[in-house]
């Protein structure tokens, strides 16, 4: 019977090619090991190099996923190294090279990773999982997905001013001077006369023009229409619950908040702007304290313009995510994790499908990133 089961498992692996499935991914790794005392690499040296290369491949997978995920890997590295078989479904050697001249053995492998097991390892190592259910802090979330309803575009306000300064100076002067004299003597008479004239004319003019002005551009004003997001709640609840958190939906927390937490007020704020108003934030913090919920994950998923994907002809939508987790237990609430803005796009045969695909992908990725960050922050 045991033999039968093993054959079954092997067939399953062959018939379901590993690549591409969400819980299974491929990564490559390379490792070199130097050796002493032998002319060529021993089987032990080769086995060590192979194991190192496999660990490198897992490290590569986490490094590609971003800082938070890489930090997560650091936390569980030892556990993974000790149980490599649980995380690697298969390993293919792409190149091996023994260099006896420098006593170095190098191997390159491509491994198929069991991502589900890796996630479970992260989860089991997190502070939240090792915390007793009764000691776990509750977390609620307020995510809004929205689409532009109207955009008011302002024309540029242009102010122009020209100062023109003109001076004209003209001076004219004329001077005439004359003298005449007569001398009568003894039968003799003489006259003399002289005249002189001088005239001068000066003219100067100057024109100076000074121009300037300003153009005032006013940012577009957008109003948003909220997109029904019950499936978003499902994505967030699933990922946070799977990671070991005690999750409460905001709608259920609202009645316990002493009238301070209002989902409608949050939605109203997000309809008109990108941020929550101070008063709304203060009310949320106060309300959650009243309800005994110390953590709040909140943010927006903005659905962009719909267009046709030039390659496939399918509808394509981009979604921009902004999200953070707030610890409201302290007197002044603190950010414990933040994501975004990050853009994701989804395609589908209809507008609805493209939007749902993009939102699902964006919510899934944002929630995973938040979980990684809070796991590293040792939230319980």
């Amino acid at each position: 019977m045991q033999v039968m089961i093993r054959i079954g498992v092997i067939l399953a692996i062959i018939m379901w090619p590993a690549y591409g499935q969400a819980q299974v991914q491929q990564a490559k790794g390379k490792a070199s090991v130097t050796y002493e005392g032998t002319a060529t690499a021993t089987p032990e040296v080769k086995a060590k190099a192979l194991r190192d290369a496999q660990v490198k491949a897992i490290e590569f997978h986490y490094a590609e996923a971003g800082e938070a995920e890489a930090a997560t890997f650091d936390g569980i590295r030892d556990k993974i190294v000790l149980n490599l078989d649980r995380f690697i479904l298969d390993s293919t050697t792409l190149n091996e090279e023994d260099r006896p001249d420098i006593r170095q053995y190098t191997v390159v492998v491509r491994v198929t990773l069991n991502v589900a097991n890796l996630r479970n390892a992260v989860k089991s190592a997190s502070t939240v999982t090792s915390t007793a259910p009764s000691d776990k802090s509750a977390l609620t979330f307020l995510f809004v997905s929205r689409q532009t309803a109207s955009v008011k575009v302002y024309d540029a306000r242009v102010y122009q001013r020209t100062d023109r300064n003109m001076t004209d100076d003209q001076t004219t002067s004329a001077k005439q001077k004359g003298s005449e004299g007569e001398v009568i003597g003894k039968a003799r008479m003489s006259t003399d006369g002289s005249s002189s004239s001088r005239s001068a004319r000066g003219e100067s003019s100057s024109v100076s023009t000074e121009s300037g002005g300003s153009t005032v551009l006013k940012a577009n004003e957008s109003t948003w229409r909220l997109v029904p997001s019950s499936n978003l709640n499902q994505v967030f609840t699933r990922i946070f619950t799977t990671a070991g958190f005690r999750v409460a939906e905001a709608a259920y927390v609202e009645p316990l908040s002493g009238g301070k937490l209002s989902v409608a007020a949050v939605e109203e704020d997000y309809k008109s702007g990108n941020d929550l108003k101070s008063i709304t934030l203060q009310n949320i913090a106060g309300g959650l304290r009243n309800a005994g919920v110390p953590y709040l994950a909140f943010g927006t998923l903005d659905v962009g313009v719909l267009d046709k994907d030039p390659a496939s002809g399918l509808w394509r939508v981009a979604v921009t995510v902004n999200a953070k987790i707030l610890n409201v237990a302290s007197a002044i609430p603190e950010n414990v994790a933040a994501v975004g803005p990050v853009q994701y796009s989804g395609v589908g045969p209809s507008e609805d499908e493209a939007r749902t695909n993009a939102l699902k992908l964006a919510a899934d990725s944002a929630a995973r990133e938040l979980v990684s960050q809070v796991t590293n922050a040792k939230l319980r």
Partner: protein
Amino acid sequence: MSPARAGAAQVAFAGLAYSGDFRSIEARFPNSRRFEESLKRTNSSINELIVKSLKESPPKHFDLVFDNLLSLKGNDQVIAVALVITEETVSSEGFGQFRKLFIQFSGQAMFFDFKSMTVLRAYPITFAYIDAIDRESTDSEMNARISAVYFGAKGKPGIVARFTEQLSKASLPTPASRYIQVARVHLSPQTLEALPDKLKSSQGTAATWVADYLSEALSSKTGVPILPYAKGYTIGNILSMRIADGTVFELKLPKPDYELSIDVTDMKKVLYGNTPAGASYIYGVYVSLTLEEPLSGRVYLRSNFKNGEVKVVPASQEHVDDFPAYTDSLRGLFTKLSTIVAGASNAWLKASAAAPDIEKQLSDTREVLRLCK
């Protein structure tokens, strides 16, 4: 569904597909589309004729099922195969008093995982046809030539027969399958000068043409699947294709484990002999090839190769078209090299390869290709 052999894996036949941007399919494959329309008027289709050919010579290593692909959604069946036409180049150029007709079709027998939409393996197929006629071809004359491309003529198998043959030999991938791909192609300015305008009309067409020749020669001689040249056919490593019923698939190409680089450094003709009856020329092609594993940087093959084909030009011939001779020379180089890589011994290698340790390099290359099967 066709009767399945007990225990044999099943592969769904997805039909004929055109690669690339769905909007440009009519513009990029006008001759194939016109030929399809002409078949439709006789209540036939290329797909139907492919199915007939596949039923006559079924694959050895798996069973083909001919259900509508979309009906397999949610089914256990995950592997599908399509004949993907990736390139259709038809050029008609004035040449003395003749029109020179150059037809080049490239395609892939492409296996993909229908659930994850990932390419599993691809066997390249190319078909070239060069002809000279004294006038511009009519639509029906062109259709006859496209028919020859798909279904063969004068004993030369067409794309459909080659697709059927590839499928008959093809094996299904295992998780340990390794991928090889032509990753880089470079053509020197002298090489580009020797090519017809049609191959230079858009960026990358000439590079894709060279990559397809090497891929097909290597694949057909060694039986190794080779991923399509990514720069020619994909955007961001996604290859989109439209199958006959209009459905568009977007397939992810896996990253290659081994990369081939081609540098065509020169194409030149040298006078070989001259007699009153005519002259003969050697059309030489100079190529540098590299095969490496990118992560470790290990190089298995790095050598310059050259090949020459002789063409006789009668004294009465006023105009000489060099391109078909260069094509023969390039194809010849890739085919001879692939034959040697496949295991045959050939005196050509000694005169054509520059690397002193070429035998060792080819033995390493052989090993890599064996791993990629």
